[in-house]
């Protein structure tokens, strides 16, 4: 693919390049024909300042040979590879192809390492020492930017060590999440709930679901209003992993704790995204990652 809009520039670049090489050759030829006067004592025969003489030592002829080899190398290179304008080169090389080939080779080299994880059940992968080490490195390099180096997440980034799952915590769910990503959508529900006061009441009701400090009066006023939320969050607020609706009773506050945080959520909504990693990793790598993450939540004591 040419970056030039007119073919003039391609010819211009090619022309200058080839003319320069030709000019170097001509220079070499002319300088080779040059003759210098040398006296018998190997000086130029002139005397300056009383006793200063200039030697005239010839250059080694193999330098000319090297020069010619350089020119031949250059011309061969320009024939085989891109260099003369938009001419692609007989070797048909491109950096895209080289990248693809290197990726393919790297995957082929790694395949034996990952081979045994391709069919191993996720809980077994989680217990495998080598898989844990590989998973830890994969996680550190690719996932820790959002989920933290210790996988405990932060505001808006789920904690992967607490065995609380928005979309289900079974191995298949983890693989699906990593491969295709997730988009968590909390719609703007304030108009459906009612007035600002109504939203505040619902917030207090939600707080009460988890046994948190709340205004009891407001909570009882908010309970009937919760019906619009039950569609996704369930009648008791236990959540629905199929649509990714959080369990509101488990005291895990991904987007912040407190009355204001809940009011914010209901009033403004939220779209939270887990990017799909399917194109970045091979299926075996995703299994190893899933095993690592599953292990974080299931193999160690759950840390609150």
């Amino acid at each position, binding site marked *: 693919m040419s970056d030039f809009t007119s073919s003039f520039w391609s010819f211009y670049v090619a022309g200058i390049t080839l003319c320069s090489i030709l000019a170097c050759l001509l220079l070499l030829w002319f*300088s*080779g024909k*040059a*003759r*210098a*006067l*040398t*006296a*018998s*004592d190997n*000086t130029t*025969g*002139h*005397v*300056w*300042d*009383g006793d200063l*003489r200039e030697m*005239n030592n*010839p*250059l*080694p*002829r*193999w*330098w*000319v040979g090297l020069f010619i080899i350089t020119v031949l190398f250059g011309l061969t290179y320009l024939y085989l590879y891109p260099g003369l304008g938009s001419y692609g080169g007989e070797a048909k090389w491109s950096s895209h192809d080289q990248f693809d080939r290197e990726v393919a080779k790297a995957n082929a080299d790694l395949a034996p390492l990952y081979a045994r994880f391709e069919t191993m059940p996720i809980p077994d992968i989680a217990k495998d020492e080598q898989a844990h080490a590989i998973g*830890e*490195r994969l996680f*550190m390099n690719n996932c*820790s*930017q*959002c989920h*933290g*180096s*210790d*996988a*405990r997440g*932060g*505001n808006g*980034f789920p904690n992967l060590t607490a065995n609380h799952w928005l979309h289900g915590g079974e191995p298949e769910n983890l693989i699906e999440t990593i491969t295709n990503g997730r988009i968590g959508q909390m719609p703007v529900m304030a108009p459906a709930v009612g007035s600002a006061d109504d939203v505040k009441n619902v917030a207090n009701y939600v707080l009460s679901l988890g046994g948190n400090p709340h205004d009891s009066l407001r909570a009882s006023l908010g309970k009937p209003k919760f019906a619009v939320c039950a569609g996704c969050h369930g009648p008791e607020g236990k959540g629905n992993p199929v649509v990714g609706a959080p369990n509101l009773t488990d005291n895990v506050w991904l987007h912040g704790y407190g009355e204001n945080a809940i009011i914010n959520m209901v009033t403004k909504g939220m779209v939270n995204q887990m990017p799909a990693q399917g194109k970045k990793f091979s299926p075996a790598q995703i299994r190893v990652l899933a095993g690592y993450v599953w292990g974080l939540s299931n193999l160690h004591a759950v*840390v*609150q």
Partner: protein
Amino acid sequence: MNPSSKLQSIPIAVVADSGAALPGAEAELTSLYEAHKKIYPRSVSGLFSRWRWGLVALTQLVFYGLPWLHWGQRQAVLFDLGERRFYIFNLVLYPQDFIYLTGLLVLSALSLFLFTAVAGRLWCGYACPQTVYTEIFLWLEKKTEGDRSARMRLDAAPWSANKVLRKGAKQLLWISLSLWTGFTFVGYFTPVQQLAHEVLVLNVGSWEVFWCIFYGFATYGNAGYMREQVCKHMCPYARFQSAMFDADTLIVSYDEARGEPRGARSRHTDLAQAGLGSCVDCSLCVQVCPTGIDIRNGLQYECIGCGACADVCDSVMDKVGYARGLVKYSTQNGVQQNWSRAQVLRHVLRPRVLVYAAILGSVALAMAISLAMRSPFKVDVVRDRGALARIAPGGKLENVYRLQIMNATEVSQDLRITVEGLPGLEVASEPVVTVDATQARWVAVRVQLPYDAATPGSHPIAFDVASLESAAHVAEKSVFIIPR
């Protein structure tokens, strides 16, 4: 123009001179280039020749022998580029230890200045790989093609069975030695015994093959054919030697006052009567010279200071019964002022040399101490940047870090991580980690602080990673961020 200035009037008129050497000689047109004329150095034996062969033996014993030494389970000297570890006997060097390579280069440069200030091109004539391999290849050439005159005759002769046999044998020996040299070179990077096995089963990696042939071809070309062309035209040492020498540097000198006028004479000629100097004009000094110069013209840039001419002149002086030392290592001052050997050497030990030696000594000492006091592990702290801070269950403030712990030994190490810098600051994740031999491992560390322990903002803290088995510990700085 100040009339009272002491400026000297220097004539700038260019005067054509018809040639100082031979009056009446014609100037001739010559080409800018000249074809390489092969130099056939004559064999020589003597003190300096023995020194050179001793150094050839020593350097090549080290070069060819070192890869075959073992240290525990591994090769003693191995530069594992793939795993980014350099093993030199008991040292495990990481890329972070690059400063030692810098130190080595500084030491090499200072040694160069020191040796050159003392005795000129010692390196060139005795230890440089170009000289060493040329000597070896020349020796092989002598063994197959004969001495100087035999070699010259063989080259001039037409092709015959004898010539094919001799030249063929020489090429075979040269190519074998070159390939062995290339193989040894690659053996510093790929364990040599593994490499040998791969060669025997003809399953060598393509890069190993490439470098073996590349290095072998370089050896073959440089030692077999290029020889003095490297010293004359490629090596910068010749060109900047004039900046490193002074009038008290030992150089190969021809005692012109003693030697001239030169000329043939019979054994019993009285020198004073005949008006002759010690030089019998045998031209052996020119025949043995590997760079093809005549040392009687004085120090030239081509002279690599090998002392072959000194050796051969001494042997000739012995034969004609004169004193040795017509061509010898002396200094410019020594020759001009006719000093004795003791006087020359006393002047060699001058302030410049002593200063170089002092600096060299202190740098070497500093490097040795640094290596001896090296910590068995290194630590690098990288704070998680994705989230400034976290509120952990229990209301504590939490920052997450990654510590890269690099084990620079060949045994597994158990290390404890602690942190300090704020009241109540502590490590909340597992504080004891195990790092395997030569492994560099990233460890996620959570650091917690009670809620109101400090003001919002960035606070400097320090991690201390201490070995459980020894007193070694490393402290690294970082920051703890408290959000508003």
